[in-house]
């Protein structure tokens, strides 16, 4: 680990990608993502990789897929409207089981919406990647440092499970600056023998027929094989629930009230919790770090004899994360929500007020 | 001496080879192959000059030419 430096969120997560061995980036400028594309336009070639400014997000994600099929650690970054355009290929990548990393620097609302930070792509990314019901690993870091750390290991996970990885930051985290420590450089592995990689064929290797729909297998028909192979995919997803769930419990040991939040909302909630604790109110935070797999068991285990009330905090109107959380919470625990939309941030003072109302 | 060999399993009986044969010695068979196509067959084999035009035209790579 090197010394602390001050970095803008978008630049920091891109630098972490370079250090993780990413050597291909394609993107299309969109606020609040642009500083990521600008940064990698010079940083990627400097690191010996390829940068392409694509003609659209549609192209950008397809270039990433192409590079992944060349055995390269490839990524893109975008924001909501761009992610909408990418969903077709996210579906294809989930079907092909292609490892690649997509950063969604969320902005607010539907359509053009607003260009400031928000958490309103939660459903879109966690429910399924495009059409077809397949999924990928989805992370929701709360700080620039955590987004660096997650980015740094994202391809290791993507390659281990052969899956796209989505990292959900937002306009706040992308544009702000704070102190971070950058990890050392690491080498990407040689992926040329992987079944999803074409070209660089060694003597005697059989051809790779890389398809987004796994028609081949032990079954008599294509449909049966598709079903069979998707069931195999499902086992992989289920293994994530056992092995890859990540979350943080902050000041939860003696907590009587709980805030449940992710990403930027969670870090704001931490300030509120500190202030509330100073006033003698025992509040803690449960923070999902993985959005897929979602920490269902951990939420289900919240003890109704200990916790008097829960407040969910998110930057999305209508609520999304709240609805997901409520689903897993013991029905005897009262769950309230505080959320801001339209690109407005949640504020610690307002969280404090909401918690006090629950007392 | 020349001959063409038509792979009955590959031929779909499209007949694109018929019209390009300068000796007009390719035609559809009476029989059908496993897929139900009246595959192409050569008549008057002795007239074949191994010009390859039929094989070049064949979309299904069903024709081999010998000389």
């Amino acid at each position, binding site marked *: 680990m090197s010394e602390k430096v001050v970095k803008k969120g978008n630049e920091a997560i891109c630098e972490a990608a370079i250090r993780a061995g990413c050597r291909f980036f394609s993107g299309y400028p969109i606020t609040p993502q642009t500083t990521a594309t600008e940064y990698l336009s010079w940083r990627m070639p400097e690191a010996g990789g390829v940068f392409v400014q694509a003609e659209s997000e549609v*192209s950008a994600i397809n270039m990433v*897929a*192409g590079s992944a099929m060349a055995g390269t650690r490839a990524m893109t970054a975008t924001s909501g409207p761009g992610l909408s355009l990418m969903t077709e*290929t996210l579906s294809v990548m989930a079907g092909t089981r292609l490892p690649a990393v997509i950063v969604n620097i969320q902005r607010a609302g539907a359509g053009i919406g607003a260009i400031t930070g928000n958490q309103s792509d939660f459903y879109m990314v966690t429910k399924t990647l495009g059409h077809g019901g397949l999924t990928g690993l989805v992370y929701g870091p709360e700080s620039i440092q955590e987004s660096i750390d997650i980015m740094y290991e994202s391809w290791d996970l993507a390659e281990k499970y052969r899956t796209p990885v989505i990292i959900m930051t937002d306009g706040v985290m992308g544009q702000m600056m704070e102190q971070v420590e950058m990890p050392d450089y690491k080498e990407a592995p040689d992926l040329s023998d992987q079944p999803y990689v074409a070209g660089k064929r060694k003597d005697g290797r059989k051809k790779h027929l*890389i398809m987004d729909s796994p028609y081949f297998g032990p079954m008599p028909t294509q449909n049966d094989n598709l079903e069979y192979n998707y069931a195999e995919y499902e086992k992989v997803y289920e293994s994530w629930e056992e092995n890859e769930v990540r979350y943080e419990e902050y000041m939860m040991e003696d907590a009587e009230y709980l805030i449940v939040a992710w990403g930027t909302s969670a870090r704001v909630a931490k300030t509120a919790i500190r202030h509330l604790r100073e006033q003698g109110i025992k509040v803690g935070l449960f923070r999902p770090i993985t959005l897929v797999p979602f920490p269902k068991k951990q939420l289900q285990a919240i003890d109704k004899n200990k916790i008097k009330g829960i407040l969910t905090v998110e930057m999305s109107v209508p609520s999304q994360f709240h609805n997901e959380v409520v689903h897993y919470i013991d029905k005897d625990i009262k769950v309230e929500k505080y959320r801001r939309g339209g690109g407005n941030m949640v504020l610690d003072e307002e969280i404090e007020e909401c918690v006090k109302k629950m007392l | 001496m020349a001959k063409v060999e038509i792979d009955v399993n590959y031929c779909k009986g499209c007949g*694109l080879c018929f019209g390009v044969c300068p000796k007009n010695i390719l035609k559809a068979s009476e029989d059908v192959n496993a897929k139900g196509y009246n595959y192409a067959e050569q008549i008057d084999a002795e007239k074949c000059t191994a010009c390859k035009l039929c094989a070049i035209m064949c979309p*299904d790579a*069903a024709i081999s030419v010998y000389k």
Partner: protein
Amino acid sequence: MECIYTKSKALSAVPTSFCPGCMHGTAIKLIAEVSEELGIENDLVVVAPIGCAVFMGAFVEFDSFGSPHGRPGATGTGFKRSNPDVPLILYQGDGDCASIGLAETMHAANRGENFTVVMINNQVYGMTGGQAAPTTLPGQKTTTSPAGRAIEGTGYPIRLAELIAELKAPKYVTRQSLHTPKNVLAAKKAIKKALEIQINEGGYSFVELMSACPTNWKIDPKDAPKYMEDVVLKEFPVGDLKG
């Protein structure tokens, strides 16, 4: 007797699933033959996107990968930039290349990506059952232009090769046809030239191949070549456009 012509070893040991008289088979056969002649049959990679082109991977011995409909210009760019030494063919239909993927096609051409596009132009959407394509001829009946393609409202057939030839970056742009043995040989020469450019000096090449879709044209395969000669090639003249 000596065998002077047979199936290329770069073709898989299964018959194609294309309809009788479909010239996808011809184009794939030519690509296989050229790969053998250039000694790249173990190196060549093909992109086989949505449309009947998607089947190609199953019928060749090359590595191949799929692409969402219209996106080979982008997937190919990502692949080739990361694997600059691997020869690459984007094997696309006209709906894929000239309609849904027009942006990807034009921008890849404009960047001068170092790969070869082979576009099969049969003037219809084949896989989905013969709907109108941007290449459909004026007055041509399809399942979505039952009264014949009307210029008013649907425009004129897009001559993609001409559009691409207008760009500065492409090194070689040509339109060939697969309707006679002579044209097939010329098409093969064009594919070979395009790959040689890609391998030797580097640069974008575009080979449009006029093909028949007898099933959706509702025409006897045997009659397709004459129709192509008399009608189709009037709208889409063959020949080199650039390079």
